[in-house]
């Protein structure tokens, strides 16, 4: 495939205008994508800083750098920031916006202004959440789950924080609507459903979850506010209410939300692995189908968070069973990725290393999830550091590492410059080692009975906690190397042109960086997304 010689200016200098206003009021999906990228990734860095502080506090028993109240506030804010301000909006907002319209051969999303509005809602929600830390009774201390009865009684500023999350939720719903419409209506000629890149399939499945499940979170948070401000008593057993009902409502959204985090990540992996193994993806249809299956069945398993909450035994049986069913489509994906690698011509560039480690870390996270999904073993490890290790394996080792893969794979396309390869690999190695040292140790600690959400612990846990804290430093050292290398590369690195990795999806056929309307002329699609015969790379 020949490199397209751009005749139109790239989206960076099309309007002739520069400055903030040309960005924060732009309706171009690529600019909005970068807005989302920098805001969500910025919050990720804030979250990392808070996580580091948590780990430093746990470095030794007793008070190390903070007291219990500060610790409670910190893990709450760490969780809220990471979940609601980084990983849920992150994938759809940044890489969904940047890449998806180009991958389906569209000029933009279906509703560009709504797209900009979504970003604004996200920022407004974020500002409200930040405001809640410094006003009223100070930062919330409930954990990111806002469980009643504590959340309806604590004197901290829970009302404002949940209102901020409420606003961010609307941003998520609107992005979902926008993407569903875009994928249905704006596919280029020849872009059949069977030729959609798997990243697009995963965004499509995710978008449905966003549209159908997020309203339930919204209403739940309104009920918490009503409980606090009006004293409705809905969750108060003393007045005929039911606190367990809160947990149902919260997890009806928040378990599917786990799929909002992981499905797009799986999509990235499904796009990266074939390119760097120079082989068509194994089982395209099954991967596409399993995205839908995960979205559908994943919405029915929320009760596995409530095995020890006083739910009925019948419900425990049903939810445990359903949880085991969702493991099937997830495993289908893992097996298909591994089969794609088999006999491929693998090149270990940075995006591929992140993608490969995704498979391992996600599998560890997923399998430890089954330990939690079986009611009998869950009773033993519920609310321990085993759980903390488990979900970091899935959302950080899984979704987070896929986010890094996407950063290395796609950002050069939009900047026209690239990072240096060697430091990227060093960074990956440090992060991979640090990650496992920290979170595997935390899982062991959980098995031994160390509870989560406490600033202190019994002396016998001291050594392993020190190990975990040192792991967090290795991880963050790698993160810093990655950041410096990546961003220095994007702004001042070697030029990145054409299709160096030989991707077969549409974003690799247009100019680098892409012009405002993405293509010089409307593309006509003649082959599937993983048909590498025309890419000119052996």
């Amino acid at each position, binding site marked *: 495939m020949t490199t397209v010689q751009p005749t139109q200016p790239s989206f960076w200098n099309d309007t002739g205008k520069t400055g903030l206003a040309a960005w924060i009021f732009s309706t171009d999906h690529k600019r909005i994508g970068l807005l989302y990228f920098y805001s969500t990734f910025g919050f990720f860095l804030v979250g990392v800083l808070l996580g580091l502080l948590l780990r430093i506090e746990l470095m030794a028993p007793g008070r190390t750098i903070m007291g219990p109240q500060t610790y409670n506030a910190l893990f709450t804010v760490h969780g809220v920031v990471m979940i609601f301000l980084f990983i849920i909006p992150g994938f759809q907002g940044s890489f969904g916006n940047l890449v998806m319209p180009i991958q389906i051969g569209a000029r933009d999303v279906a509703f560009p202004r709504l797209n900009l509005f979504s970003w604004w809602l996200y920022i407004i929600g974020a500002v409200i959440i930040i405001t809640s830390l410094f006003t009223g009774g100070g930062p919330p201390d409930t954990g990111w789950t806002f469980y009643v009865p504590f959340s309806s009684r604590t004197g901290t500023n829970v009302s404002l924080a949940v209102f901020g999350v409420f606003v961010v939720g609307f941003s998520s719903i609107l992005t979902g609507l926008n993407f569903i419409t875009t994928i249905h209506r704006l596919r280029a000629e020849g872009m059949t459903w069977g030729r959609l890149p798997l990243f697009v399939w995963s965004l499509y499945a995710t978008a449905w979850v966003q549209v159908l499940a997020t309203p*339930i979170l919204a209403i739940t948070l309104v009920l918490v506010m009503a409980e606090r401000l009006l004293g409705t008593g809905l969750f108060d057993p003393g007045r005929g209410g039911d606190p*367990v009902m809160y947990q149902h409502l919260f997890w009806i959204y928040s378990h599917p939300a786990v799929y909002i985090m992981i499905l797009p990540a799986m999509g990235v992996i499904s796009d990266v692995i074939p390119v760097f193994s120079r082989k068509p993806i194994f089982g395209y249809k099954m991967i596409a189908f399993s995205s839908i299956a995960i979205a559908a069945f994943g919405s029915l398993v929320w009760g596995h968070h409530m095995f020890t909450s006083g739910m*009925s035994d*019948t*419900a425990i049986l049903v939810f445990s069973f359903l949880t085991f069913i969702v493991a099937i489509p997830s495993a289908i994906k893992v097996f298909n990725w591994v089969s794609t690698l088999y006999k491929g011509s693998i090149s270990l560039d940075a995006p591929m290393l992140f993608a490969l480690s995704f498979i391992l870390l996600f599998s560890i996270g997923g399998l430890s999830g089954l330990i939690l999904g079986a009611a009998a073993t869950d009773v033993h490890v519920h609310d321990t550091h085993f759980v903390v290790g488990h979900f970091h394996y899935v959302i950080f080792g899984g979704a987070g590492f896929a986010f890094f893969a996407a950063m290395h794979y796609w950002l050069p396309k939009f900047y026209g410059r690239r990072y240096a390869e060697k430091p990227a690999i060093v960074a990956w190695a440090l992060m991979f080692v640090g990650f496992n040292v920290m979170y595997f140790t935390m899982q062991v600690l959980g098995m031994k009975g160390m509870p989560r959400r406490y600033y202190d612990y019994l002396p016998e846990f001291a050594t392993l906690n020190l190990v975990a804290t040192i792991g967090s430093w290795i991880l963050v050292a790698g993160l810093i190397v990655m950041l410096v290398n990546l961003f220095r590369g994007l702004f001042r690195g070697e030029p990145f042109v054409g299709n160096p990795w030989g991707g077969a999806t549409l974003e690799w056929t247009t100019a680098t960086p892409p012009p405002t309307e993405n293509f010089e002329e409307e593309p006509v699609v003649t082959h599937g997304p993983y048909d590498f015969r025309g890419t000119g790379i052996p």
Partner: protein
Amino acid sequence: MTSDTGAHHIVGYAKLAQVWLALLALTALTVLITRLELGGYKVLGALTIACLKSGLVIAFFMHMKYEGRLLRWLLFVALVTLAIFIGLTFFDVLYR
């Protein structure tokens, strides 16, 4: 009832009033049902009535009865999802 061509259907006052009365009657029923000894089925009863009521509101006040196929389908999908969510919680509520 007035029926017009295509986009804008106007529902007559008489019809609206009838629907309103039905809603009031159902509200009264909800209150009555709390007085009966039905155990877990009380929730089921209250929910059935609530569904009937929102069905009426959606069909007449929100005009869904007169809308096109696509919109009805979308609403249907959302409602079925909600029904499944609520339905699954009964494995807890009914057997606790």
